[in-house]
């Protein structure tokens, strides 16, 4: 076992560079763990808004609003993320007429891919509410949009939290796929060090796996606290 090699490369796994400067990942070129975390956080942020739009569109009664959302959700949920990344990687230059950087390509794909799953979560969250909520809101004189915004969505969001955090964890794991297009993030640094050090593959991949595990563990434990905090005022007679 050569754990010293894995640990001496820890800063390389974490930040993608051995001489680490805090300004470096944020301003110049996000690398290593910071790149993974940035991909995951921005990805889930975009996916939330895409998923909210897709989920609400899917629940619409107008077919020309509903059909595009259904197609989007079903197609994206039916394909592997790696395929979406490759597909868009070759499609984007055709659309824009210029080569797209791998980082933004994968970021876009993470948003679109996770957005479809979040769309289903939004739909399930709204469907889980009792029908009477909407009817009561309408009867007090709120419009449909107002009732959605003020009454339904705040409650639905609370229902969504556990599955949304699951999705966040999945996305965090999925960011490893960016390594295949050569984005320097946690997995890519693992590949690089693995190619450089010939004797320590085991230690390197266990360390990388533990780093991912740590991120996901922090996310889930924080979500439990968040959920408890947000359901303080919920009726306890259920």
């Amino acid at each position, binding site marked *: 076992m050569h754990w010293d090699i894995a640990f001496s490369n820890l800063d390389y796994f974490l930040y993608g560079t051995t001489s680490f400067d805090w300004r470096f990942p944020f301003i110049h070129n996000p690398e290593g763990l910071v790149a993974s975390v940035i991909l995951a956080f921005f990805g889930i942020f975009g996916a939330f808004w895409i998923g909210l739009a897709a989920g609400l569109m899917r629940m619409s009664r107008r077919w020309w609003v509903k059909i595009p959302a259904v197609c989007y959700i*079903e*197609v994206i*949920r*039916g*394909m*592997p*993320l*790696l*395929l*979406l990344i*490759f*597909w868009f990687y*070759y*499609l984007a230059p*055709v659309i824009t007429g210029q080569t797209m950087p791998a980082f933004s390509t994968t970021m876009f794909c993470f948003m679109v891919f996770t957005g479809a799953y979040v769309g289903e979560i939004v739909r399930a969250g709204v469907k889980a509410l009792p029908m009477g909520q909407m009817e009561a809101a309408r009867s007090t004189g709120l419009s449909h949009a107002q009732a959605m915004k003020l009454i339904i969505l705040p409650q639905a969001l609370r229902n969504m939290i556990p599955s949304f955090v699951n999705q966040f*964890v999945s996305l965090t*794991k*999925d*960011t*490893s*796929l960016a*390594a*295949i297009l050569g984005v320097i993030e946690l*997995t890519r640094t*693992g*590949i690089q060090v*693995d190619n450089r050090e010939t004797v320590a*593959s*085991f230690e*390197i*991949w*266990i360390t*990388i*796996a533990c780093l*991912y*595990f740590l991120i*996901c*563990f922090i996310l*889930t434990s924080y979500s439990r606290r968040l959920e408890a905090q947000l359901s303080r005022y919920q009726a306890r007679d259920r």
Partner: protein
Amino acid sequence: MDYTFHWARMFSGEPAQWMWDGFCTTIQISTISLVCAMILGVIICILRMTPFKLFKWFSLAYTEFFRNTPLLVQIFFWYNASHFVIPKAINDWMNDLYSWIPGPFTLFGHHFVGEWMLLNVEFIMGVIALTVYTSAFIAEEIRAGIFSIPKNQLEASRAVGLSFLQGYRYVILPQALRIVIPPLISQALNLIKNSSLVMVLGVTDLMYQATQIESYHAMPFEAFTVALLIYLAISLVVSFCITMYNKHFMIQVMY
């Protein structure tokens, strides 16, 4: 838009042959991994529910670790690093495939292993990675299904004179299976989609063949679109089956 599409070239000659080969490999690796993952998942689930603390902790650590690390990292681990911990004898035995694969037996005039199934170390490591990853999810789902059956069902079965195992066999499991099967099928679907990742090892699955066509025939867009449609077709068929299953077999249970 100065990209010219060559859709017709996708459906004849080399590209069509490659895509078909890739499709077969994807189905093979998914099927083998699914069967293994089911068995392993059930074992892990049983270990989790035994009263022995050691088994419980082991299976808890197993599920949490393999669920919370990316499949890609696990694939790299199994392929690049597992030979550091696997005993040398087993490692040599695995590399020396022809010593243990049950011969190139022929079926309908085809060599089963040579032509129908490309068995090599990459394939086996891909199967191991997919199996271990999926079994952690399957174990959690089966456990959730069994826990969703109220505990007094088991107590009632004991009260009418069934033994513990009989209670599980005749009362708990039939109800739990009905709940567990839809998530298990969607887990199978995830497995098929996840199997696209084994291309990083060079397993010649659908995704790998699409990248082959991209580089040999310069048809990236067509190749990936056809691959997309194939994966989509598999998913839609399976999700249609889930819907049908739910319509026919789910009964509304009121507790």
